[in-house]
């Protein structure tokens, strides 16, 4: 019997939502880690019962939780993220050098073949990995040691490494994205990195086509064509057909090209989903209408998907890690809002229904397809 498990991180705890393959009746379990910010929960592709959760608090710091039974029970694991060597400095808001300072884990990306091997993206931006199931974490410091690293400057939301993608056909190749710094690619499992920002154009930085400084909000790829990348930037929806070496804009007819999430249909590599947000100052949907936009042509031509979503008086946001797709035959699409709703579509976005309406503000949504 197939089913899905939706892993939801919120401002005040984690929730695990489950349904069978029909995806019409849901059970809601949680909150786990009640009262703590759960930035991300993600399962291992190699062992779906192995989950990792980033648990953090402005008062009490960072915790990492691990489950071996699909989220029924959890155990704390290693939580020390120490920058490699003498960390040095990056640029602060006032232009002065500022020491790197660990704040929290934004994202876990378990490796494709080993449940004990996981990458972690943190703030201040760096990538770490564990090879012992989270007991110890080691920085892949080649990223922060990139020749541009000392120029990276946080944006208003902090300098977070929020996106980690593993090329499913080549585990040597990793992509990361960092708010207010840009996007980077490694072809040697994270030892060395290159910027992949050619073609990005950001009017909010002094040189709009600079190598770094672009505020990338999210990158997504389809496993069948891992060289094709889709990016939701601070403004602009972008596409690369050569693993990030060159980008071009595909915003097309979107009502606004500001937004946070972007994802790709599980079975159609040219079908892409975004949730347009009004502007960088107005983090809510245009006209108070919550609309997912879908392109079936790899960008530029977008159609609004509205059935089952509120079409008036809706002023929530959808944060960067809060959309995911399942891999059932009729692809499911899921997203969570800062208003605490988690919406699901069991038909690639044609119709939507809330799984749950009144959670704390949703920070992240991941989906596991269980067969």
């Amino acid at each position: 019997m197939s089913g899905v498990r939706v892993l939801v991180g919120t401002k005040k705890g984690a929730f695990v939502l489950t349904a069978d393959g029909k995806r019409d009746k849901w059970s809601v379990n949680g909150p786990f880690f009640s009262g703590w910010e759960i930035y991300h929960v993600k399962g291992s592709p190699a062992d779906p019962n192995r989950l990792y959760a980033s648990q953090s608090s402005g008062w009490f710091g960072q915790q990492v939780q691990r489950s071996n039974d699909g989220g029924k029970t959890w155990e704390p694991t290693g939580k020390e993220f120490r920058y490699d060597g003498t960390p040095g400095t990056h640029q602060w808001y006032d232009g002065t050098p500022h020491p790197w300072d660990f704040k929290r884990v934004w994202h876990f990306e378990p490796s494709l073949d080993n449940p004990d091997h996981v990458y972690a993206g943190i703030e201040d931006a760096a990538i770490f990995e564990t090879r012992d199931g989270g007991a110890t974490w080691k920085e892949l410091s080649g990223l922060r040691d990139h020749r541009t690293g000392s120029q990276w400057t946080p944006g208003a939301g902090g300098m977070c490494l929020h996106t980690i993608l593993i090329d499913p056909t080549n585990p040597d190749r990793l992509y990361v994205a960092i708010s207010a710094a840009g996007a980077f690619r490694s072809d040697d499992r994270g030892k060395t990195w290159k910027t992949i920002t050619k073609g990005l154009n950001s009017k909010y930085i002094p040189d709009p086509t600079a190598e770094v400084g672009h505020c990338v909000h999210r990158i997504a790829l389809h496993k069948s064509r891992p060289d094709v990348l889709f990016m939701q930037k601070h403004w602009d929806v972008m596409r690369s057909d050569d693993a990030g070496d060159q980008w071009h804009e595909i915003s097309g007819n979107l009502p606004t090209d500001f937004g946070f999430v972007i994802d790709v249909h599980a079975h159609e590599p040219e079908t892409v989903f975004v949730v347009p947000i009004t502007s960088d100052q107005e983090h809510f949907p245009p006209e108070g209408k919550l609309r997912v936009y879908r392109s079936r042509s790899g960008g530029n031509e977008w159609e609004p998907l509205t059935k089952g979503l509120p079409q008036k008086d809706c002023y929530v946001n959808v944060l960067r890690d809060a959309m995911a797709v399942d891999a059932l035959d009729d692809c499911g699409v899921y997203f969570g809002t800062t208003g605490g709703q988690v919406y699901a579509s069991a038909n690639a976005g044609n119709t939507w229904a809330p799984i749950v309406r009144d959670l704390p503000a949703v920070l992240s949504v991941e989906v596991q397809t269980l067969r």
Partner: protein
Amino acid sequence: MIRVELPAGLRVLANLDREVTLEVPAPVTPRAILDALESRYPVLRGAIRDFITDRRRPLVRFYACRQDLSHEPLDAPLPDAVARGEEPFLVIGAIAGG
């Protein structure tokens, strides 16, 4: 036995009741209490004070006997009433304001 009260976030983390009792060797200081607490509940390491420097996390406070002891040295002896177990040592999450 020394009595320690923990804030809700740490009770959730360590799956504890509001008050914990600990054997703490004399002299009873904040450092000795935290050492004993973290030894029994390793998940609390790093949540009250920094892993490396031992500095109290900025939004954590230490109170006892109606006094704010947050800015006292970690090795300063605590009031006798705490050492005798008559009063708890309070670990507080600072108010968030608003």
